[in-house]
């Protein structure tokens, strides 16, 4: 596989990651969200493996497998389990202002390209053009957490944001040092267990996972 071809495949993966990020932004159904998230993880894993192959940085294979195991298999499985246990698989979230959200999303993508422009010029890596996409994925994850009200959706937004960070690390620098990537993966795994416990705590206390109900704590006048 020539470097050019690999770079092009990588760009396609980047485009698909961005596409899934937009999909996550407006998907209403729980399982739909979960599948989109798993797809995003798969694209990320493939992209990491390609970058590893092109650059000869073999530790990227390990992070690729780690992504596959964690973001495509384990975390979606945990979420699937939780959604079934909590009987929320039929819940459909009400979304307001889908067009506006999409427009803000597009603006964020453009902003990311603008922000990373100086870095693109400095970098010599074949993956440099995807850094903007990575930052855009981070921003879209943030936007998702702001616009959605369901606890599960917010967590998926958070994980999508983390995907963006991972992607940024591979596209800007051919991956962080292995000890850091392993540590980050461990943190995400712990976080997965914590939000699992949280869902049950929220459910038993508030009877639903709509975080809009949590408005008791604020400054009184």
């Amino acid at each position: 596989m020539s470097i050019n071809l690999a770079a092009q495949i990588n760009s396609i993966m980047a485009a698909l990651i961005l596409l899934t990020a937009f999909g996550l932004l407006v998907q209403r159904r729980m399982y739909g969200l979960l599948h989109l998230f798993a797809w995003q993880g798969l694209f990320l894993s493939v992209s990491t493996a390609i970058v590893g192959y092109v650059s000869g940085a073999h530790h990227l294979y390990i992070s690729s497998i780690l992504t596959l195991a964690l973001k495509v298999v384990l975390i979606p499985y945990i979420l699937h389990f939780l959604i079934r246990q909590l009987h929320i698989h039929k819940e459909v979230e009400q979304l307001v202002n889908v067009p506006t959200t999409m427009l803000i999303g597009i603006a964020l993508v453009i902003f990311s390209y603008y922000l990373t422009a100086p870095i693109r010029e400095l970098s010599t890596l074949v993956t440099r053009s995807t850094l903007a996409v990575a930052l855009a994925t981070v921003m879209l994850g943030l936007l998702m957490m702001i616009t959605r009200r369901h606890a599960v959706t917010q967590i998926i937004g958070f994980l999508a944001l983390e995907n963006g960070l991972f992607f940024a690390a591979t596209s800007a620098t051919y991956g962080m040092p292995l000890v850091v990537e392993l540590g980050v993966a461990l943190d995400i795994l712990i976080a997965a267990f914590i939000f699992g416990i949280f869902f049950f705590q929220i459910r038993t206390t508030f009877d639903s996972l709509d975080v809009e109900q949590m408005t008791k704590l604020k400054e009184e006048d």
Partner: protein
Amino acid sequence: MTLLILLGVSFFSAIILAFVGDRKFAPEINILGSAATFAAGVGLAIEVYMHGPMTAGGKFFFVDAFNVYLSVLTSFVSMTTAVFSRRYMRWEREHGRVGHWGMRFYHAMFQLFIFAMLLALLTNNVGVLWIAMELATLSTVLLVSLYRTPTAIEAAWKYFILCGVGIALALFGTVLLYFAAEKVLGEGGEALLWTNLSQVSDKLEPTVLSLAFVFLMVGYGTKVGLAPLHNWLPDAHSEGPTPISAVLSGLLLNIALYALVRCKVLVDGATGTHQAGYIMMGFGLLSILVAAFSLLRQKDVKRMFAYSSIEHMGIATFAFGLGGQIATFGALLHMLVHSLTKSSIFFTAGHASQMHRTQEMDKIKGLLRGNPLVGWGLMFGVMAIVGMPPFGVFVSEFLILTATMKDAPLLTPLLLIGLGVAFAALFRRVQPMVAGLVPANQHPLKAAHIPVILHMLLVLIIGLYMPDFLSQWFHTAVELLK
């Protein structure tokens, strides 16, 4: 070697305590583990004092004047908090606020949290620093929701989401930092080592580092509790168990500020300008003012002191941003005395709310008569925290004010307004709480006095006379951070 013991003790105590669970002697093991950690911390400090900065574990860890004093402080406050939590948590257990599994979880997570903070302090790798910060967040999230009340769960969820997102942005900043470092130091783990980075900071690409600093500032700034990113802090501090409020406020905020300052040194070296300092000054000043005016409206005692923490973290951030010898010295001292004073205040405030079965300040009265040590402890704690002489906070705030008058005279009035308003707000609230007759809703309580007395004595001693080794460390740290 001492360094590995220091980290290992808290880690293994966490595992042991997870198995010991709710047995009668669990609090004693917790104290023992923390005391051993403190002893190792002192041992490490003596080693560094005799031989100067050092690295260990194949450059994976390193100790210099800046992080050694914070390590000793962290292990000390965690030890006294463990002593305090023995009586405090027993009361909570007896009154049914926390159950069997809650106690097991509490003790194990307490030690894991201390491990995470010490790892963040001692690691040489900027990436591992991030991991440890995240671990410190994760280990305390479920402690904040320990009581399972709706408000506690809301607070913990807010803490989890806001700090999770904040710290994720700091990771993006770290990626950018690595991107710049890799060009100079080559690929691999070596490029993220602080000892290597600080030597070549002037060769790092300035545009990338200024972009990285924005992300690091927002990310770690969320954890420091700087306005306008502070929303999680008052909730988490007021809803969690008091020992956790004490360590969150006294230690975790310090560690986050430590991470931020480390990054600032690199950015300053790369850009050669004072840009990062100005950003920190802005955030710091805003936090002081926002917190001071929020203090006026508080009704919940722990919530009020949480806002006071935001104010003091703002002061330290402002001073680090200001830079220069006096301001940096003041900021380092301020981190120390604020940590000691604030955790002591939380100890007394926690006991006061146990005595009155409420955290509402309107219902807390007559502490001086009801339980003199709690009353006087709170009184002296507040006097110290608002910056009255002869306590240590007065010295650090005085230094910072002097430096501000010299380097940024126009900001002095703003700083003074913040300090003045905070002074008035805290005093107005504390006086009715400690004075007056014992009300009907007050119940007697066996309080833990030793931690409070110890902390207040230390703050007093530092205010009157600074030991040689401490000032020498601070001077070395000031040189490092220049």
